[in-house]
């Protein structure tokens, strides 16, 4: 491995909206610098999880070290540190940006700047990064580089005189980007002689070597065999393996200030090596950890239950394994009268929740019932005690409640002018408080609202997308707790309350939600052998009711010779369908019913 002076290292990341071509550009950089041969190139090298590739998003970040001989004849080390591209992972983004001195701002030349991009640019500016604007997809017939340049200048206040026009797909402008990184991104500070401080920007669990930690050396140097300490967790380890990412792991004996690499040190779980923590040497520790560390706080909770109660232990094992690799995933056992034994799980946001569910079902082959997501409510009781309630079923009764507070987020949406009206309507319908509206460019507007998080984690994003025909983008951040006139809405099936169907809602909306929810459940729950009443109640007061009429028949009218095989298949299908349902009392309830509250259309 070539040892390169700090002055010839450049650390950068790529900021881009989903679909604006980040992964394609990263691939192209790896190819042109010869880091990855054309033969080795699988499309989109950096996103290596199936789910990421399917959804076209990056969840877990990765890094790549490239060697590039610039026009000045010198060889430079360029470390690309990839960032996750979703609002749920803002903290992870901020840590990977903190490991860089510069960033490429990639904007689709036919689309323009989106809310998520804007949020990440602000994060980059907070970290004093040099930002290089790149207009991608310049080859497309719809490209309007002039308009988009104007937009970037107005929205971000960034000088775009030297904006690079590129097409990652066609390989246009790639060398300009590399030259620009060398010339514009400042080298790291030469602090090789100081005590070791290395910033963890990612970690993942490897079944053979324990946790693999990705880091950037901010000062000092680190060697194979060093005894190290994670300054926040306080845990100490001996380095088994030290290396760089090209992007495959390649072992080295030493890394110094400015460099990016990985270690393996028989670390048992990612919780011991959290993103944002600082690595130092036990023999010569740094005085203090790097700034900016935060605990992961789950914002969204839901119950996960195995459809087949025999799978409870399997679910526990799967969650254990996933959490080895996901420090943000919280879970603890809970039991529900309706669903039996399961886990209450905490997630950073909705996407995080979906990804975990999908991995449990796909990688661990579990059949799950998921309850509707909930936020954490802060409840003050009449005796002054303050509780945090993650599960609506745990809400103390109205008699002993003094106040309920709920988390609010600041939502910023960027939208073409014509959808402003419908999006304001959406925010208002979700109890949003208007904060600001700005005309960014003649046809793009930024809309800021403060909205209860509980209203955002239902289908807010889907609504935003469908109301704006996919053109609006949004991001949100937590701004604190506010009191609200909230009540718990209970659902009774066949006279029995079903704890997993309870939800906390604003008192003014409770009747309507009760009506819609009972109606939706009537649609989703199939007829049973007997009549099933569905009631929505606040305390003892029933606010809405529906009846599922009893099953009147289950018959296949026509069955002749050839049909017997087909008929048996049909019966098996019916049986399988029943197996996927949860027995709540004597009522068979399909999985979708537990998420029904997310699919109410008024």
């Amino acid at each position: 491995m070539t040892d390169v002076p700090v002055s010839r290292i450049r650390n950068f990341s790529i900021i881009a909206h989903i679909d604006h071509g980040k992964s394609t550009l990263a691939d192209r950089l790896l190819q042109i610098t010869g880091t990855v041969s054309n033969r080795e190139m699988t499309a989109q090298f950096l996103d290596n999880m199936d789910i990421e590739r399917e959804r076209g998003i990056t969840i877990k970040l990765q890094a790549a070290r490239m060697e590039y001989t610039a026009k000045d004849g010198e060889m430079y080390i360029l470390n690309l540190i990839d960032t996750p591209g979703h609002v749920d992972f803002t903290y992870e983004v901020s840590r990977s940006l903190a490991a860089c001195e510069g960033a490429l701002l990639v904007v689709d030349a036919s689309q323009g700047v989106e809310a998520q991009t804007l949020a990440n640019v602000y994060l980059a500016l907070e970290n004093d990064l040099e930002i290089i604007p790149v207009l991608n997809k310049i080859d497309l017939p719809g490209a309007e580089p002039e308009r988009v340049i104007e937009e970037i200048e107005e929205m971000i206040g960034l000088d775009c005189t030297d904006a690079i026009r590129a097409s990652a797909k066609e390989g246009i402008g790639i060398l300009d980007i590399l030259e620009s990184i060398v010339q514009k991104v400042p080298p790291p500070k030469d602090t090789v002689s100081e005590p070791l401080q290395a910033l963890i920007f990612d970690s993942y669990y490897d079944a053979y070597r324990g946790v693999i930690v990705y880091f950037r050396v901010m000062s000092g140097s680190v060697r194979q065999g060093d005894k190290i300490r994670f300054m926040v967790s306080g845990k100490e380890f001996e380095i088994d393996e030290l290396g760089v990412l090209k992007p495959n792991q390649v072992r080295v004996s030493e890394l110094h200030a400015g460099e990016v690499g990985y270690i393996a040190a028989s670390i048992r779980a990612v919780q011991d090596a959290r993103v944002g923590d600082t690595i130092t040497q036990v023999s010569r520790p740094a005085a203090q950890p790097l700034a900016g560390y935060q605990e992961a706080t789950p914002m969204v909770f839901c119950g996960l239950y195995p459809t087949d109660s025999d799978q409870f232990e399997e679910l526990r094992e799967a969650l254990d394994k996933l959490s080895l690799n996901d420090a943000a995933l919280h879970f603890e056992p809970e039991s529900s009268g309706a669903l039996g034994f399961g886990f209450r799980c905490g997630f950073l946001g909705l996407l995080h929740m979906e990804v975990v569910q999908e991995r449990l079902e796909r990688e661990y082959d579990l059949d799950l019932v998921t309850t509707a997501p909930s936020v954490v409510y802060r409840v003050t009781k009449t005796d002054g005690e303050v509780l945090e309630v993650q599960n609506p079923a745990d809400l103390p009764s109205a008699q002993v409640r003094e106040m309920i507070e709920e988390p609010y987020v600041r939502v910023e949406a960027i939208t073409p002018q014509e959808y402003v009206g419908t999006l304001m309507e959406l925010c208002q319908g979700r109890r949003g408080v208007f904060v600001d509206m700005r005309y960014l460019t003649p046809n793009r507007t930024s809309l800021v609202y403060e909205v209860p998080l509980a209203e955002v984690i239902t289908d807010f994003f889907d609504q935003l997308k469908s109301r704006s025909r996919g053109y609006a983008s949004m991001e949100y951040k937590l701004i604190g707790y506010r009191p609200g006139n909230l009540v718990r809405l209970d659902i009774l099936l066949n006279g029995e309350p079903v704890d997993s169907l309870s939800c906390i809602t604003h008192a003014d909306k409770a009747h309507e939600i009760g009506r819609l929810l009972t109606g939706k459940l009537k649609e989703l729950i199939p007829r049973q052998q007997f009549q099933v009443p569905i009631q929505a109640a606040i305390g003892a007061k029933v606010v809405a009711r529906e009846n599922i009429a009893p099953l009147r028949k289950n018959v296949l009218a026509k069955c002749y010779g050839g049909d017997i095989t087909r008929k048996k298949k049909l019966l098996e299908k019916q049986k399988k369908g029943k197996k996927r349902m949860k027995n709540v009392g004597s009522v068979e309830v399909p999985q979708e019913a537990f998420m029904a509250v997310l699919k109410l259309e008024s």
Partner: protein
Amino acid sequence: MDKASLAIIPADIPPTKSATLPQISTEQPSILPTAAYLHIPFCQTHCRYCDFAVTIGTEDLIEKYVQYLLQEIAFTPTELQGLETVYFGGGTPSLLSSNQLERLIDALSKRFGISANAEISLEANPGTFDRAKLQAYQRAGINRLSLGVQAFQDHLLRLCGRSHGVAEVYASVKIIQELGFDNFNLDLIFGLPEQSLADWEASLQAVLAIAPTHVSLYDLIIEENTPFGRLYQTDRPPLPTDEETVEMYLKTIEVLGNAGYEHYEIANFARPGYQCKHNRVYWKNQPYYGLGVGATGYVYKQRVERPRNLYEYFTWVETGQFTVTESVTSQEELTDTLLLGLRLTEGIMLESLDKRFGKSLVAQMLHVLQPSIDSGYMQVIHEKMQLIVPQGFLFSNEVFALLT
């Protein structure tokens, strides 16, 4: 078609002598079927509820198909055992010319033999035949007709995409009766979109006025890959509710019962002595040949299936090989016997089951079926197991689900 699953039975060598054949019980003289189903996949229009593989046939295509069907007959195993029942189903078999039908019946007769008093049925759609054609069919040997009426309301027929109206139904019935077909069936469907109970009662009265020997009445099934499947959802308007279709079914049982029809199978009614012999072969789980595209047969205890696509069927025939697959196990055979036999009002004699499958297997099955006895769907009395009409029929899938 998977080559590995094919074995060759040369048409000119009696199949029982071939080494590739499965073991045949020596107790019975012949286990080859005495029932044959022939599938005619052509229709004038595609009904909007139907998910059968049917084709709008041109004359040339129908003729080509008949020739392939003749070839298939020629390599189907036989012992000249003599057919007791033949059934031309579809599709619309009445689109065959009289000459084509004659050639098919002739080929069956030569290959398998046809008993003197065999039941030879043909499905026909109103408006697809005239007096001359039907007379020629009659001369060719057809002695039972099944007319696809479906409804006696023009607006419902249009909604179903049927190629005929009510007037064509009466015209066809007139021809059938004038030619002296004493054995004929009417097919009807209830639970159609926009159909009211009054519509259905009117249809039942129309049936009584025509006085056929046999009536089949089907509760509409919404199949996924059909126009109905895309338009309608079971139990949601404009389809009648389950309450209404159950009402229609109960009304059917009442009206036809009072008029002297035997309710002998879930969806079938007949004058005494006029039950469909061919269909009883299926419900008794006895062997039958299934000839033609998409047809399934039950031969040598094997459920064999022809390709469902017409051109794949042609290719299959060109190989000239009778398909051999795995035989059903004794357990499967018992399940099938129950699934099919319980559809008949007469039920199943326990003694016959014990003989065929052994007492312990049968006792095991009865144990599995106990919940349906508890629910009042089934009874075992006089050494016979049978579904209780009408609840047992209405919930027959609940009973059958216990068996799968």
